[in-house]
């Protein structure tokens, strides 16, 4: 029984591991893609939202700043227009300026600076200025308080004078005004002399940037996001980094950072553009920045959203999703393992059962699989297969036993057949006149060759060789009959032609199957060495005498058995002492080797010529050896039978 190599233990490629690997990897991949896409699209949605939020926030801040500034602009404009339309005495002028400061809490100080001699023909410069100091309104004269540079040369005076319109000054620190960042709104006013409009002076209103920077600084975006205000020149006006306020400009920062893109950004801001960009803030935080101009002053307002804080929610969400996904994959893996095990468990037990069956044990109980799925069907089929195999093997065992019985009976038959042939050698040790040796090597299958020799009387010794057509039991039975008849008729009739004719007649009766035997039958008259022989279709024997070795010339005669009225003829041969007659069946000459070459008659002739001639037993053994050598391992297909008789002559 075939036994499969190796055990039934599944290796690394077990179904469970395959399923787990494939399903886990696939679901992990799907989940990772979904999570990644979700993160990416959430981010881009967030960025879009952010831009519009940033824009709204900036614009509202810009509006609020503009509102505060426009109050101051309007007041300043009002004073200028008042000065153009009415004539104000010095006292009335002072009252106007003082009232303006008093009524408008957002105004730090206000003054009117006249062109040379525009106020009085006698004094060249005149510039009264009211301002707040310690909660009261204080007064000074700019024409005298500017000690080294007359007010005429200052920006707040020069710009509106040259441009002829309202101008906000670049913010500055006021030396006397309590170290506050200030900006001045300057409006030119004009008079008419002889229909010619000419500049009379500048109304200047100072504001501290305190409230504006407070307004801007109060903006808190997320945790650390903020708003910043930059002047027309890029000066930082409001920023959570207090050190930078009024100290650093956008361009100095760009210089310090050696960042050309920052400089470009500064240029865009100064040019009054609007933008939404990614930006590393002054404190080094990656942020999104929206910037927009404050038109009236040319300043820029920027709002910054720190990226990390913006993405915090998304990141947290993604993390939670990741954790949930991981847990899900773990759960899925567990489920897959469970299902795969439930599928492979019966498969495994089936495999184990197969392993036992493979060693030839068909009596084991197969594991019960109750499921209706494919595994259940397999288990049922397996059960059926096991029963069929068991039945088949039972039948096979019985058939084999029967065949073996027949085989052994045939073997017994072959043994009996062989035992019927005379096998005692030397056969007649008391007779020195001749010696005889014979051998019959049956083929695997029981066959029909035989030989026989016996005394008919004291002087007549009969010897014969025969080959029954075909093989197997019919040939063996026919051989028995033929051999028995030949011996009895030989002893009764004593002449070869009569023996053959009589036996033929007997065998031919009811021989519908046309069984036949070829027989060479001879009788040696010991006293004379005369051999009387007759042939029934058998191979001619070989004569070995002083002349050499030759085939005996004889009349063939028809084979024994098929035709009742066949006639045979007795011929004669005189043997001299030392002469040998060699009889054989076609099992000798038709012995084949592996390439189907026949041993053949010439080879037999040569073998006899070259072989030992003195002893008939040695002669036959030598021929047998030659035949075996020729066959070279090819199976023997026919019985190999030989008889050698050597005449020694009568004892004198």
């Amino acid at each position, binding site marked *: 029984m075939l036994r499969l190599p190796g055990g039934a233990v599944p290796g690394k490629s077990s179904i469970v591991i395959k399923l787990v690997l494939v399903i886990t990897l696939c679901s992990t991949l799907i989940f990772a893609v979904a999570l990644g896409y979700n993160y990416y699209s959430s981010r881009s949605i967030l960025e879009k939202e952010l831009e519009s939020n940033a824009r709204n926030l900036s614009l509202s801040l810009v509006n609020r700043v503009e509102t505060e500034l426009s109050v101051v602009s309007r007041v300043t404009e009002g004073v200028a227009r008042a000065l153009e339309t009415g004539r104000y005495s010095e006292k009335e002028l002072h009252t106007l300026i003082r009232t303006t400061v008093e009524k408008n809490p957002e105004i730090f100080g206000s003054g009117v600076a006249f062109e040379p001699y525009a106020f009085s023909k006698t004094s060249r410069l005149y510039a009264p200025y009211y301002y707040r100091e310690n909660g009261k309104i204080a007064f000074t004269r700019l024409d005298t308080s500017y000690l080294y540079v007359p007010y005429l040369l200052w920006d707040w005076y020069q710009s509106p004078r040259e441009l002829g319109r309202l101008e906000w000054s670049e913010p500055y620190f006021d030396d006397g005004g309590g170290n506050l960042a200030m900006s001045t709104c300057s409006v030119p006013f004009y008079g008419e002399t002889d229909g010619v409009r000419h500049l009379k002076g500048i109304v200047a209103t100072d504001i501290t940037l305190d409230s504006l920077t407070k307004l801007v600084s109060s903006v808190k975006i997320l945790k650390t996001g903020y708003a910043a205000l930059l002047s027309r020149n890029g000066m930082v006006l409001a920023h959570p980094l207090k050190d930078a306020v009024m100290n650093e400009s956008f361009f100095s920062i760009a210089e310090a950072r050696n960042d050309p893109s920052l400089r470009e950004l500064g240029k865009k801001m100064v040019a009054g553009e609007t933008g939404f960009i990614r930006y590393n803030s002054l404190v080094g935080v990656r942020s999104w920045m929206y910037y927009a101009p404050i038109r009236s002053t040319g300043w820029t307002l920027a709002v910054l959203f720190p990226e990390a804080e913006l993405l915090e929610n998304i990141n947290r969400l993604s993390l939670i999703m990741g954790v949930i996904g991981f847990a899900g994959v773990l759960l899925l893996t567990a489920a897959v393992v469970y299902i795969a095990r439930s599928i492979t468990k019966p498969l495994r037990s089936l495999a184990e059962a197969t392993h036992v069956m493979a060693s030839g044990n068909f009596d084991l109980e197969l594991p019960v699989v109750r499921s209706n799925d494919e595994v259940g069907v397999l288990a049922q089929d397996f059960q059926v297969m096991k029963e069929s195999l068991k039945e088949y093997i039972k039948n096979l065992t019985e058939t084999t036993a029967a065949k073996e019985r027949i085989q052994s009976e045939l073997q017994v038959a072959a043994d009996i057949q062989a035992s019927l042939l005379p096998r005692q050698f030397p056969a007649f040790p008391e007779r020195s006149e001749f010696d005889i040796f014979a051998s019959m090597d049956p083929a695997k299958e029981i066959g029909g060759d035989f030989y026989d020799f016996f005394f008919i009387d004291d002087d007549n010794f009969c010897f014969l060789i025969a080959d029954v057509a075909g093989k197997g039991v019919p040939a063996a039975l026919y051989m028995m009959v033929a051999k028995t008849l030949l011996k009895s008729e030989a002893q009764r009739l004593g002449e070869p032609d009569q023996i053959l004719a009589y036996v033929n007649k007997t065998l031919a009766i009811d021989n519908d199957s046309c069984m036949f035997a*070829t027989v060479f039958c001879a009788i040696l008259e010991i006293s004379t060495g005369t051999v009387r022989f007759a042939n029934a279709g*058998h191979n001619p024997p070989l004569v070995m005498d002083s002349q050499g070795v030759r085939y005996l010339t004889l009349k063939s005669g028809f084979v024994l058995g098929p035709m009742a009225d*066949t006639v045979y003829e007795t011929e004669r041969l005189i043997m001299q002492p030392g002469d040998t007659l060699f009889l054989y069946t076609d099992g000798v000459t038709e012995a084949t080797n592996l390439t189907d070459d026949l041993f053949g008659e010439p080879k037999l002739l040569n073998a006899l010529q070259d072989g030992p001639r003195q002893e008939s037993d040695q002669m036959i053994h030598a021929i047998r050896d030659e035949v075996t050598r020729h066959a070279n391992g090819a199976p023997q297909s026919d019985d190999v039978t030989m008889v050698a008789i050597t005449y020694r002559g009568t004892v004198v």
Partner: protein
Amino acid sequence: MEIQTRNEANTTVITITGRFDAVTAPDYEKKVQELIVGGDIRIVVDFAGLDYISSAGLRGLLVTAKLLKAKGGQVRFANVAGTVKEVFDISGFGTIFQMDATVAASLAAIA
């Protein structure tokens, strides 16, 4: 052994090639029996392509010849030569069967 039959001049010519032995003799017997059942009882066997004949082959020839004789039929052998001829000579079969040198001669003789 290959067995082919053809009809020629009201006679069935059986051509046998290869080895005529215990293995192939039943095929030959079956073929001839079929012919006899079909009423073809005039037969010429062409031995030209036959390499070898064993005693079982000879028995096959005898069986079929006997059947044909019982039905009043005839069989002739053509082109028996070489080792097959030797076997025929040794066994005496050459004396009991009617043999011709050619198929044409057999056909002529049988007509």
